[in-house]
């Protein structure tokens, strides 16, 4: 394999791994801040204990999220020097703003939060929790605005052999980025909600700490139902945006080959890289309807997209279906949990299922990123720069070495981190840290 393919693999692995930990941070930080707020308002000790217990899981998760994030910043320079030099004027400044405006706040206050239980008043401690929650989500804003530029480049001019900033507001208000941001944040809330639901259900089933986990469960159920319904609705608009701005990605998501008006969706479809292997049971006009809110709209097919500009079809198609399918299951589970939140102990079979649902939103998010990033190929910046032009002139050996070390390291860290979180989760709330 050459340095390009290895770098792509490395970046995919680094992002996917980072993205196991980040989504939980987004949602769980907000839940913990809510628990602390409840503690300050009601003075009930149970809320403080809740914040501490979920906070302990948060810290382990946070540590893995932070350290794997550094890898991504490094990789733009180490592996994608062509990219960095070409769009650094815009992309680099967004990353720098993220560090200055959000990441500093998050990293400083996570230390304050962790070490501040005995040093700060409950109110000051609550403020620290909100700083962490706000900063985590603000980080996501800037990172996704940066990614949004790769998806739908705006506000630049081509000058001095690179993309230079021309209109900062256009970059920051990129509608594609904001749709992506909403989708990602809601996904993060789903991850946190199912995480809290699953662990609470495990304890409720064993009847340990019924009050503690009952409250946690209700909080999780409310967030789960709101976030999972909203993400589906918002996902539809996001899809409309993709249809409009990235026709090749849409065509790959649906493995849609012939440009046509009133495009159908097939109930049975086996995709391939050069045409569908099977298409059966069409529902007329459904694809046009979903993509453009008009059953007669024209949908561009892959056959009308030059071969060297088509994304990998099978991965994109399957990832999209994986994401949507899991999303549907999540809505059903969240709905039931919310409807029965006050007497959930009467449904032990459901409590037994929920811990197994914890991975679902994680998987959905991984699939979602695959759709977004694989579906954008062969472009690294849509329509502007190809991934193959972006790679550093490093040797395949260097990349292979770091890929191997990174994979080994991440595997071990992943195992250690997840094992530890399972252990803490099962142990339940204990006094001290």
């Amino acid at each position, binding site marked *: 394999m050459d340095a390009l393919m290895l770098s792509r693999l490395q970046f995919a692995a680094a992002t996917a791994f980072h993205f196991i930990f980040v989504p939980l941070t987004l949602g769980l930080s907000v839940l913990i801040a809510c628990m602390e707020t409840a503690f300050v308002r009601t003075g009930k000790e149970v809320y403080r204990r809740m914040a501490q217990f979920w906070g302990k899981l948060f810290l382990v998760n*946070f*540590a893995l999220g932070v350290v794997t994030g*550094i890898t991504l910043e*490094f990789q733009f*320079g180490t592996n994608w020097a062509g990219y960095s030099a070409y769009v*650094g004027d815009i992309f680099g*400044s967004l990353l720098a703003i993220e560090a200055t405006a959000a990441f500093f706040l998050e990293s400083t206050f996570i230390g304050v939060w962790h070490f501040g239980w005995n040093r700060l008043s409950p109110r000051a401690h609550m403020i620290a929790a909100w700083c962490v929650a706000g900063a985590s989500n603000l980080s996501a804003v800037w990172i996704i605005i940066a990614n949004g530029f790769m998806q739908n480049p705006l506000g630049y001019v081509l000058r001095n052999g690179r993309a230079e900033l021309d209109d*900062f507001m256009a970059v920051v208000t990129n509608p594609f980025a904001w749709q992506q941001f909403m989708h990602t944040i809601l996904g993060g809330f789903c991850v946190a909600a199912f995480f809290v639901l699953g662990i609470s259900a495990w304890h409720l089933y064993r009847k340990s700490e019924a009050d503690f986990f009952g409250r946690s469960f209700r909080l999780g159920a409310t967030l789960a139902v709101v976030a999972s319904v909203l993400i589906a609705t918002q996902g539809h608009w996001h899809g409309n945006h993709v249809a409009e701005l990235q026709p090749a990605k849409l065509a790959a998501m649906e493995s849609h080959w012939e440009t046509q008006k009133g495009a159908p969706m097939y109930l049975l479809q086996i995709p391939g890289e050069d045409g569908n292997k099977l298409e059966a049971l069409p529902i007329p006009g459904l694809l046009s309807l979903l993509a453009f809110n008009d059953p007669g709209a024209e949908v561009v097919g892959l056959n009308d997209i030059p071969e060297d500009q088509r994304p990998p079809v099978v991965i994109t198609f399957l990832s999209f279906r994986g994401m949507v399918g899991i999303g549907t299951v999540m809505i059903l589970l969240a709905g039931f949990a919310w409807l029965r939140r006050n007497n959930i102990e009467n449904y032990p079979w459901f409590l037994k299922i929920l811990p197994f649902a914890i991975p679902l939103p994680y998987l959905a998010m991984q699939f979602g990123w695959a759709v977004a990033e694989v579906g954008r190929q062969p472009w690294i910046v849509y329509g502007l720069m190809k991934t193959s032009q972006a790679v550093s002139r490093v040797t395949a050996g260097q990349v292979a070495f770091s890929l191997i070390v990174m994979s080994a390291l991440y595997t071990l860290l992943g195992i250690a*981190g997840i094992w530890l979180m399972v252990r803490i989760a099962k142990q339940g709330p204990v006094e001290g840290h």
Partner: protein
Amino acid sequence: MESTHMILATVWFLLWGVLWAVYFILDGFDLGVGTLMPFLAKNEADKRMMYNTTGPFWDGNEVWLISAGGVTFAAFPLAYAQMFSGLYTALMLLLFSLILRGVSFELRSKVDSDGWKKIWDACQFLGSLLPSVLLGVAFANIFQGLPLDETGLNQANLFQLLNPYGLAGGVLFTAMFVTHGALWLAIRATGEIRERGINVATRMWPALVVLTVLFLAYSAVATQLFGNYFKNPLLFAVLFIPVGGLVLMRVYMGAAKWWFAWGASCAYIGGTALFGVIGLFPAIIPSNPNPGNSLTIMNSASSPLTLKIMLGVALVFVPIVILYQIWAYKTFAHPVKDEDMLY
């Protein structure tokens, strides 16, 4: 390059230098404490004491590295691309060390098993020592110039970086950070660890003086760093910061004023970094042996608009960051007690 663009680029070059200096000052002491861990800690209580002296701060400190990297990317994208791809393997090693070190804080304390703790202690030590050495080696090599050719491709590999001057940089950085960390132990640790920290700082000081003088002399031979200073002798005044810091460090150590001694060490580290950065100007990465291929603020800066917007962002947010970080330091400045032992 037109004049406003030039001024903006110069301002960003100075800010770039300041960011690296602040990063060395802040992460320097927690890297130093991590490096000292196996030498100073005799038992579990000692280790926990050491972990908890830096516990509330290390994460916020490390963000200065992310910012320094981010600013290189944003203000001088071409230099970022060349520096990071050119120093590929060295930076990967730095990255892996920082990863292992970062998680060691959080994971170590969560399981009560000797084997588990030993693994993370090893990560903490290597993850502190390696970045100190690697940063020193990397910067010394930048001071010296990297072999850039006309296409800009930098063919330096890890072993070429380990040349005598590069290694001298590694040794100096490690010594600076270890002393800095030892002084931090004098401030925040209690009991025997504090005494051992004081002992290390006192013994390291003369070594630091010798290393600094040697490094300056070596720099005069191996680099062009003094060029700007001879062109404009007023600049030599900058040397008062590191030299003054070094002298005051000893004075305050003698008077047992540990906060002041640590502050002097901050001035020494920051001043040393600034000395190098000013010597580099206007290059960010000088090319050696072909100075014509150097990456300078002229050929690698971002557009004037980006530099302006970034400056606005920096002027608003950096003071805020500094304020809340000072507040955080004040909140946790007290010597570590039992109730502060969270790791």
